[in-house]
């Protein structure tokens, strides 16, 4: 915690707050009927994306999932473009062609949300490989869920990363569920450290409600990767606040499950507590950020609503570079 400067702490808080407000707002607007398609929200999991991406620069790349908004924001993708993309507008990050499940910004090192569970990990081996071949110290990070941790593509990527000794980190965001299915049931290993060992890499578990725990765990793995030490596996234990996707009635969850987590372990609450108790930040500084972020998100929705849908002329563009 102490290694982070005040500005970095403010950045971390702003990042988490931005993700939270973005997601809460998308939830509300979806309920009102303004947003089309499948939308999977990251609210509750903010400390994971933030704690990990704080270590990264634009050359480092991440691969994300269907639940990608948080990773995008943490990796520096423009919030205005993201909101417009989720609304399917021409001002969106992907000109409205991708939508929530396909937001990407390669300039920011964001290789895409992904509609295919397990789609990202093999791609991240390629990112690691490119860095390795070029002799840079860049890394690739694959975010994926507990459900995705059983997908063959994910498992293959883990083996390959070790065999090729790639600068890749495999981050399983274990939120306890894949859709309705418990990770206690679907993941056959006793602990993810065992699974990591089965692929020859170190595996650590950290508390995903605690930004600092994530930040430190990721820092070590990323440092090792940057210096040629090869891949690592990190389990981040956390919880999602909303349903699997918007519209999910969540009857598979325990009574008051989410309320309890919110009250006891909310990552923003815990962060505030830690930094104010340690006198690192003032509550008022964070309140100011809250206000700025609220305005930003508000503006993003207004702009997205006001923006035009993509012109039908663009239906056939952007598919091949040359044809």
């Amino acid at each position, binding site marked *: 915690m102490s290694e982070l400067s005040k500005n970095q702490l403010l950045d971390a808080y702003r990042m988490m707050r931005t993700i939270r407000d973005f997601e809460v707002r998308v939830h509300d607007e979806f309920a009102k009927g303004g947003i089309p398609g499948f939308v999977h929200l990251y609210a509750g999991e903010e400390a994971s994306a933030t704690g990990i991406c704080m270590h990264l620069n634009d050359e480092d790349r991440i691969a994300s999932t269907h639940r990608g908004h948080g990773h995008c924001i943490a990796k520096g993708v423009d919030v205005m473009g993201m909101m417009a993309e989720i609304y399917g507008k021409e001002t969106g990050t992907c000109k*409205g062609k991708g*939508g929530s499940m396909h937001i990407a910004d390669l300039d920011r090192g964001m290789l895409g949300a992904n509609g295919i569970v397990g789609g990202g990990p093999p791609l991240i081996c390629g990112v690691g490989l490119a860095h390795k071949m070029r002799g840079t110290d860049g890394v690739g990070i694959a975010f994926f869920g507990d459900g995705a941790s059983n997908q063959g593509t994910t498992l293959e990527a883990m083996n390959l990363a070790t065999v090729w000794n790639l600068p890749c980190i495999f981050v399983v965001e274990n939120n306890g569920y894949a*859709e309705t299915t418990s990770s206690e049931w*679907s993941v056959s290993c006793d602990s993810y450290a065992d699974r990591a060992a089965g692929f020859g890499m170190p595996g650590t578990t950290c508390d995903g409600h605690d930004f600092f725990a994530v930040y430190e765990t990721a820092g070590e793995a990323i440092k090792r990767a940057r210096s040629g030490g090869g891949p690592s596996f990190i389990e981040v234990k956390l919880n999602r606040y909303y349903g699997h996707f918007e519209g999910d009635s969540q009857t598979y969850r325990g009574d008051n499950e989410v309320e309890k987590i919110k009250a006891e372990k909310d990552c923003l609450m815990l962060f505030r507590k830690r930094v104010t108790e340690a006198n690192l930040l003032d509550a008022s500084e964070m309140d100011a950020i809250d206000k700025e972020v609220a305005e930003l998100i508000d503006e993003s929705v207004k702009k997205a609503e006001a923006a035009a849908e993509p012109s039908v002329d663009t*239906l056939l563009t952007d598919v091949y570079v040359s044809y």
Partner: protein
Amino acid sequence: MARKITYQQAVNEALDQEMARDPSVIVMGEDVVGGQGSPGEMDAWGGVLGVTKGLYAKHGDRIMDTPITESGYIGAAVGAATCGMRPVAELMFIDFMGVCLDQIFNQAGKFKYMFGGKAETPVVIRAMYGAGFRAAAQHSQCLYSVFTHFPGIKVVLPSTPYDVKGLLIQSIRDNDPVMFLEHKMLYTLEGEVPEEPYTIPFGEANLVREGGDVTIVGFGRMVHLAAEVADKLAKEGISCDVIDPRTTSPLDEETILESIENTGRLVVVDESNPRCSMASDIAELAATKAFSSLKAAIQTVTAPHVPTPFAASLEDAYIPSVDQIEAAVRKVLK
């Protein structure tokens, strides 16, 4: 036959009745029950859109949730089928075929031939397909053309609740591997469906509209658009045969060829991307086997050769429309 149920209910009912009839029928897929290992309710979802809801209460462990492991559980369904079970595995979206195709096309589809006839693989793979849900490039594809290309696989594309029930029961009782593809935009469509079980044989097209001027062949959801166009043009005195092949493999070539021989004019409506598609396949059929009857260039109406876009404006332009079909019909009549 007055009872009306939805396309989605017809899937559920067919599964329910076949599970009741035959203990070797089992159902599996991601969250087809829902809540496995979770603190709340079992049967929490009954599939991502609730299609299999309630089957767990009736059939218990014969309907099974799976981890996210399409190669794993679809392979398991295929393996169990060779042991005499009749598994119905749900591949949630057909777009996910890329992570499990080998078990379908190289294993299930080839066993009988490779093994000299000594294997039967009565597996059904149910999957959602089609655009219109604002679900973008990886959750909106058709892909039935790809499965139709593979020998050893049967491909079923029901367009109505009635066909869903009869064709799904046929699929389960059939001794070959079947891809049973459900158009996600049709789930709420209502139609008359008998309560008792019945089968519709594969390879028998449905003549949805009869008329002598133009033959329109459509697939899945496109059948309804084609019928709409036919009804509209009927008022102008233009009469169309609208043919729903119902299964693309096997294909009822006869019904299609007979119609073309009569009309001499063919429009094919296929929601797929156009290259090497069912639109191509039917056009080839006509141009090779009914050429002398053809009076005009064949017209195809398909999605363009691009991925499915997300934005409403683009997706609406991507999907073949009633207007495009009407224009195609007018064109073959010129």
